């Protein structure tokens, strides 16, 4: 098998960075997320490939938090769009866990199917290669196995890395994977490596039947109780590898400017506010319910898979301890005729 020894990891990242923007999990100052290898500062930043995961997911690489769409020039009655900013420059997400790979595959469903292909997403995704990092030892909040993710064989990865102690087994899964492998062929060795033992999941989650059951639980009293502590901050949606909602806005300086999109969150009141001030999801509970129903029911109905990938991030960061696993449990246990 092909192996990239850890001693050669930096060399490989350097080489890949010649022609690609390479997003790597790292601790950068106070931030923990995927940042470009070129921005890595020796001595200050820390590579996090051997940690379970990082707080900010890699979705930024294909759906940047702020993304320019097209230029606007406006003079009197004339307006022009001189340029659109589809960006297909080559990018590599290096070391994404299965849950985060699934987040991107779910976004592929949203942006590339159902009649319209989003040209901006399509461009970024076409230039994007995913090198996944298989998980052998799930963490305290991981439950991807319950959310249709195989953390050992992430679907959609172009290359899969397997941490074998002093090196990564390098498994090519697609043509895109072949192409990036060619870039570092001289750094890979052909040898045997012993794969780690697969540890069991700590979280025991049973999602089966939840989407179907939720169909009749829209008005269930459990939402009042579950949503009580939530402050509708939006942190859970921004760290989530699969939340994709966006807003479209414009920035002008005099006659010139551009339109851009920016992440939005169903947790925000402004998100669904309508003309005349009405809002179908004006109350905290209604927004809370939207988030969890979208994740656990609506997305499954529309695209055949849940929009939660079981990464556990929101469970760790939520300031009021809202825990999606406990919500799944509560739905399972709920009596319906209430």
């Amino acid at each position, binding site marked *: 098998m092909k192996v990239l020894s850890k001693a050669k990891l930096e060399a490989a990242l350097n080489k890949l960075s010649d022609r690609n923007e390479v997003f790597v999990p790292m601790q950068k100052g106070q931030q923990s997320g995927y940042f470009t290898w070129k921005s890595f500062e020796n001595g200050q930043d820390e590579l996090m490939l051997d940690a379970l995961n990082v707080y900010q997911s890699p979705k930024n690489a294909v759906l940047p938090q702020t993304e320019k*769409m097209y230029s606007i020039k406006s003079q009197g009655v004339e307006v022009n*769009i001189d340029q659109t900013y589809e960006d297909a420059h080559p990018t590599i997400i290096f070391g994404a866990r299965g849950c985060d790979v699934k987040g991107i595959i779910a976004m592929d469903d949203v942006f590339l199917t159902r009649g319209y*292909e989003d040209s901006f997403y399509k461009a970024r995704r076409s230039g994007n290669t995913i090198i996944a990092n298989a998980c052998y030892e799930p963490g305290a909040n991981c439950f991807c196995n319950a959310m249709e993710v195989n953390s050992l064989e992430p679907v959609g990865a172009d290359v899969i890395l397997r941490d074998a102690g002093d090196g990564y087994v390098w498994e090519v899964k697609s043509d895109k994977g072949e192409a990036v492998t060619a870039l570092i062929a001289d750094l890979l060795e052909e040898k045997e490596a012993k794969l780690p033992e697969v540890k069991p999941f700590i979280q025991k989650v049973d999602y089966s039947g939840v989407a179907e059951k939720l169909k009749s639980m829209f008005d269930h009293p459990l939402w009042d109780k579950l949503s009580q502590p939530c402050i509708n901050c939006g942190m859970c949606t921004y760290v989530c590898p699969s939340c994709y*909602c*966006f*807003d479209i806005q414009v920035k002008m300086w005099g006659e010139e400017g551009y339109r851009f999109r920016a992440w939005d969150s169903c947790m925000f009141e402004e998100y669904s506010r*309508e003309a005349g001030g009405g809002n*179908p999801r004006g109350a905290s509970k209604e927004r809370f319910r939207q988030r969890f129903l979208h994740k656990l*029911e609506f997305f499954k109905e529309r695209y055949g898979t849940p929009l939660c990938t079981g990464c556990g991030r929101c469970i760790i960061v939520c300031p009021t301890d809202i825990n999606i696993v406990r919500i799944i449990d509560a739905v399972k246990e709920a009596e319906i005729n209430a």
Partner: protein
Amino acid sequence: MPDQDHKCTCSEQPLVPTIVEVIDIIDRTPDVKSFFVRNVDGNGVPFQVAPGQCGMVSHLPIGEAMISCTWQEEQEYLEFAIKRVGLLTDELHQIEVGQKIGVRGPYGNGFPVDACKGRDMVFIAGGIGLAPLRSFIKYCFKNRADYGKITILYGSRSKADLCFKEELFELWPQETNTEVFVTIDNAQADWDGHVGFVPSYMEEVNPSSQGAIAVVCGPPIMIKFVLQSLEKMGYNDDQVITTLEMRMKCGIGKCGRCNIGSEFICLDGPVYYLKQLRDLPPEW
């Protein structure tokens, strides 16, 4: 009801508007104007719209809003009737003929014009809600033989707020087998027509539910009471069609905000049979 085979008639860049020219602007009421747009080269329209479909209209330096195309006149123009309510619509009301603006579309499923063939049609609208219905009404008149009796019931706050007055009072009443009923909320000196809300007027007029299809559009509160009245009058859920309005940004089922349950109203709607709505979470 997600439609997996939605035929893509859109451009390669669905979120990027096409620039068109505003060739005419008509004041419909003190706060509603019609904007007529055509390709900048003077030839044709940027896309073909079916009755009930919408376009995302943008004044580029300001913003975009989803607006029903109230009429497409062949290759001549697209007409959008726009009520002034906020940031973008305020600015649009300031522009003059000759201004270039952006549009993208067509969006939404549109009215089931074929499925309604052969039926008596009852159109019930309030305020700016007549704008989307008007595309269907005009389509019926254009294909008059395909539809049975046509009843139009329309109300607004005051006489001045009635949209499309010429059509309401002069053109439509002259069509064969057609009745038009107009009401305003409160009595006023120069009005000798009906006074009262749409739902109660509708019960008075009492258009027969026998073989009829009712199409309803207006402010949420009106829709709510009209639906109750229709039920009383014997209309089944598959005889009632309405259009939903949710906050929209992308118009193509991507940005997330317009959903009700697993339906994205911009893409799968905005037109629904009441029967379909009954299966959705009660957020409409």
